[in-house]
């Protein structure tokens, strides 16, 4: 076993000195990828979110004509300030998000029961302006509805007769279609990161070693091919494992930055979900490492290995699309299918449905069995004389 440990230490040290390996194993998958995938989501949510509770100033032109309205706005956290004279220019330049203009005829119209004119000036090209416009409009509609009720009430009419239908929607689906993407985000990200993290190491220590012709003297040492393959495999697994663990942490941190009710109340991205993701993806790391080891051992040079492994990058996409577009039944049998099962486990966890232990066991068993087969194939490839060709 000490020879295997020596092999592992050498391969890890050797590749820690290779900036390319290091970048993809420790930076790309673990940090850049989650930032690229989760970052825009966070940014978008933040940009389109309106906090009705936070007191906000709103520029008003002609506020003197409607003191009651301004009081109503104030009660709804919108504090009126006098709009500057050049507010149109300031709206264009983005200095002001929105301006409420109250017509001089407002008070008369209001008193006569005629539609009183209000204009909301905004700039649709600015996100902030859009948010403020929607907030202001929602509050104004609430005010209008209240006034309508009061006016009908004073005439002895129930204003609800103008609302013949009371429509509300209740989504009974346990996994709303649009949210599946978010549920699959974590396993997809992990698998992609693992492939990227192990890619250069796998190419370098198998096909690269053949190309550098350092394999021949290595094979002339008193080691079995099994030991050599195991040492190299464990080194790849170390990098792949790290490329799984680090994005798990970074994605957890990123998603925990989301306000609780922003994603969807039904989605669980808590510590338990990430714990299950870790447990269910350890066998995936073993499988992906063995897969890359076998593919790279099969190829004759680094270029060929890179080409073959580039196709392997499509691997996490297969279950992602299969589950999105096909109806794959969930059960112990599907849990035996590597990669697919990790997606299904995440789906269950993220939708807070609880994952039976035997599902996790079946998923691990399926992936580890495949990993063992691929590792056996790699040993076989290393035993062939052609490995030296």
């Amino acid at each position: 076993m000490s020879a295997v440990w020596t092999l592992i230490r050498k391969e890890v040290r050797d590749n820690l000195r290779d900036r390319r390996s290091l970048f993809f194993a420790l930076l790309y998958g673990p940090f850049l990828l989650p930032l690229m995938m989760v970052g825009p989501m966070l940014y978008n949510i933040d940009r389109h979110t309106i906090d009705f509770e936070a007191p906000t100033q709103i520029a008003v032109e002609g506020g003197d004509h409607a003191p009651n309205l301004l009081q109503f706005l104030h009660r709804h956290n919108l504090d009126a300030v006098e709009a500057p004279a050049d507010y149109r220019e300031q709206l264009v330049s983005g200095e002001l998000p929105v301006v409420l203009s109250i017509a001089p005829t407002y008070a008369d119209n209001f008193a006569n029961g005629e539609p009183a004119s209000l204009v909301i000036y905004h700039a649709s090209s600015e996100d902030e302006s859009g948010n403020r416009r929607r907030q202001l409009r929602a509050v104004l509609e609430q005010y209008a509805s209240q006034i309508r009720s009061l006016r009908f009430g004073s005439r002895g009419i129930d204003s609800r007769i103008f609302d013949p239908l009371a429509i509300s929607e209740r989504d009974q689906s346990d996994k709303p279609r649009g949210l599946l993407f978010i549920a699959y985000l974590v396993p997809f990200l992990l698998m992609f990161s693992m492939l990227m993290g192990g890619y250069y190491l796998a190419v370098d220590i198998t096909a690269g070693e053949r190309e550098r012709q350092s394999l021949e003297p290595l094979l002339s040492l008193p080691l079995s091919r099994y030991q050599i393959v195991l040492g190299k495999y464990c080194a790849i697994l170390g990098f792949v494992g790290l490329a799984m663990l680090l994005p798990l942490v970074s994605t957890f941190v990123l998603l925990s930055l989301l306000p609780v009710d922003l994603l969807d109340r039904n989605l669980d991205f808590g510590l338990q979900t990430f714990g299950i993701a870790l447990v269910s993806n350890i066998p995936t790391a073993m499988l992906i490492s063995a897969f890359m080891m076998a593919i790279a051992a099969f190829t004759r040079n680094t270029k060929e290995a890179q080409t073959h492994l580039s196709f392997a990058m499509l691997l996490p996409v297969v279950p992602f699309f299969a589950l999105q577009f096909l109806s794959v039944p969930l059960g112990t049998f599907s849990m035996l299918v590597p990669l697919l099962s990790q997606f299904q486990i995440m789906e269950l966890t993220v939708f807070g449905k609880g994952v039976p232990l035997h599902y996790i066991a079946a998923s691990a068993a399926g992936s580890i069995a495949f990993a063992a087969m691929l590792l056996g194939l790699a040993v076989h490839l290393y035993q062939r004389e052609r490995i030296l060709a």
Partner: protein
Amino acid sequence: MIEATQLSKAFRKQGTRREWISAITDVSFHARDGEITGLLGPNGAGKSTTLRILASLLQPDSGSAVVDGYDVAADPVSVRRQIGYLPHNAGVYPRLTSRENLVYYAELCGMTRRDSETRAEELIELMGMQAFGDRRTEGFSQGQRTRVALARALIHNPRTLILDEPTNGLDVMATRGLRALLRQLRERGHCVLISSHIMQEIERLSDRVAVISDGRIVASGSIPDILDATACNDLEDAYVVAIGETPDARA
């Protein structure tokens, strides 16, 4: 000691399924302890294939080879414990220093960390590698790489040395140093087998020579034996005769 008996090996012709190319046929020779044996032959004669079989990297199709009492086909790991093998290309790790390359192999051979470092230091001194012992081997000259690879082959103090063109890329002084080292190993009772296509190299170093041509041993024995057998006055003519050519007086 190495005993090769009627070794044959054929490789499948690239791009075909049924066509085979014979690399060596009925190769037999002995390399004794305390002697330097030269395997002399032109490029493509089958030298590297023979050495790879002796290093247990290839299985012979027929025949047998025994290294220090271990059969290369039946007990390859024991054979590898006895030998230090220098392949045709140095194959050192570019991101490791010369010393790290040596220590890595020492540890793989089962030596402790401390012994590995002591032995690496000894070899760095012995091979005159002090100037580049702690430099990464990336960008080394062919000669420097060969020296690292040779030191690596000696790291576990093997009884038998199998060296494929060891002077490859070495300059005059390094070649002289290598010759002195190999003679020293011979004096200590090691069995040294070297291959080369450079006749002068073999002539200067070897106690015994096996001439290989087109995958067959065409002459073997001590240099006087070969001269007698080919009725020639010098090894160059004997070599030319042995590989089936006619010596040209003008050459």
